[in-house]
């Protein structure tokens, strides 16, 4: 049923003029090449990338719900407390490396958080592509439910908003479970500068 819905949706949407996302993918397979850890499988769209491309990031609600549920299943929630060390989290939030062809494979990457979000008030060089997260935990609380949501959102943002522009930082292998816990602490720990 879900698959049928998916394919129906693909047929119903007009793509950009003459080029379907499959055409574009074929062009990329021809005109891009692997370099370092940036391998060619990365130009193969998965289901949600295709749905978001072809719907202009506005998928029909039913399809979005179904695909978000699939994404939620990819999240590997660790047991116990999800709050790590906010000081390490602050450093991870600052670093923009990871998964690029110029990064060495296996070296720990960062969350690139400040590229798009405001977090600690001391860091004034922050982007605005994502919402400000200043006082995130102070406003929302830091209980187990909130910890689980923040961990999940960082691991796979698409489980909560299918066509979000935020990368799936855990799912893509950019961040480890420990790193994500440190970022959860940066957002939720009352001692974190985000909340003080």
């Amino acid at each position, binding site marked *: 049923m879900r698959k049928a819905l998916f394919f129906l949706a693909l047929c119903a949407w007009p793509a950009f003029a003459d080029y379907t996302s499959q055409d574009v993918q074929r*062009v990329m397979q021809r005109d*891009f090449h692997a370099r370092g850890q940036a391998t060619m499988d*990365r*130009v193969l769209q998965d289901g*949600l990338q295709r749905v978001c491309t072809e719907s202009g990031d506005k998928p029909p609600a039913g399809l979005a719900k179904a695909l978000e549920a699939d994404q939620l299943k990819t999240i590997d929630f660790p047991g116990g407390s999800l709050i790590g060390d906010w000081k390490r989290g602050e450093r991870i939030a600052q670093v923009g490396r990871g998964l690029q062809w110029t990064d060495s494979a296996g070296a720990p990457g960062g969350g690139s958080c400040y590229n798009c979000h405001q977090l600690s008030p001391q860091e*004034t*060089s922050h982007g*605005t*592509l994502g919402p400000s997260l200043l006082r995130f935990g102070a406003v929302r609380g830091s209980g187990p439910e909130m910890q689980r949501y923040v961990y999940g959102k960082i691991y796979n943002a698409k489980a909560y908003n299918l066509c979000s522009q935020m*990368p799936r930082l855990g799912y893509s292998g950019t961040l480890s479970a420990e790193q994500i816990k440190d970022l959860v602490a940066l957002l939720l720990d009352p001692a974190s500068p985000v909340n003080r």
Partner: protein
Amino acid sequence: MTRLSRIGLFFVGALACVPLVAQDAKKEIQRYQQMIAEGSPVELFELGGEELWKKPQGPNSASLEKCDLGLGPGVLKSAYARLPRYFKDADRVMDLESRLLHCMTTLQGRSREEATRRVFGNENQPSEMEYLSAYVAGQSRGFKLAAGAAHPKEKEAYQLGKALYFHRAGAWDMSCASCHGDEGKRIRMQELPVLYKPQFARPIMATWPAYRVSNSQFKTMQWRINDCYRQMRYPEPTFASDATVALTAFLTVTAAGEPYRGPGTKR
């Protein structure tokens, strides 16, 4: 190139002195942009490019002086402002760099492999493409951007470029529009032009290629696209490939009518 490096260092030093307090940031950035434009070494790159343009190279020991950039062999005036465009002899749409590469292989007899071995230079040693781009683009100052948009292959390139702009893939699910999709957004302190809209594409496309003060390097449009895809966590777009030319075609057609005033000087 030590002179260029010193100039670059001076500007980086100047940048560090500019207090980037959030509320004043925009004004400060504008002041800084004005300051760096006043002492840009772009002219030195144009002179270096002219030397390379006239220098016999390759198995044919030929210069690029007979290179046809669309207005006839050796005609440089306003040629860059009309790129990308369709070239009958190659039967494809070409941007500046792909056309230069075409001339290197046909006129100079060089292999594509040799001519593309080092297309992006660094602070100490800019690339041949960078020098040549500065020289050729400089000959279009004051001419309105008018990339080809009439030939079926030019229309095809525009459509492909537009589709590429909104195509989401890669390890981080990004398209160009992920960053260049909504107005008034920034990455860190860098403002992001919404390049599919003419009012934002115009000032940007009118100032590439450009000298980058922050790393003392002259950068081409091919480099700009390459480095975006690196940060988008894609594999590498092949230099001068149809995909890269199509993106530039889409952006330049979108910017049509803007008087070219590059090569620019950027942060």
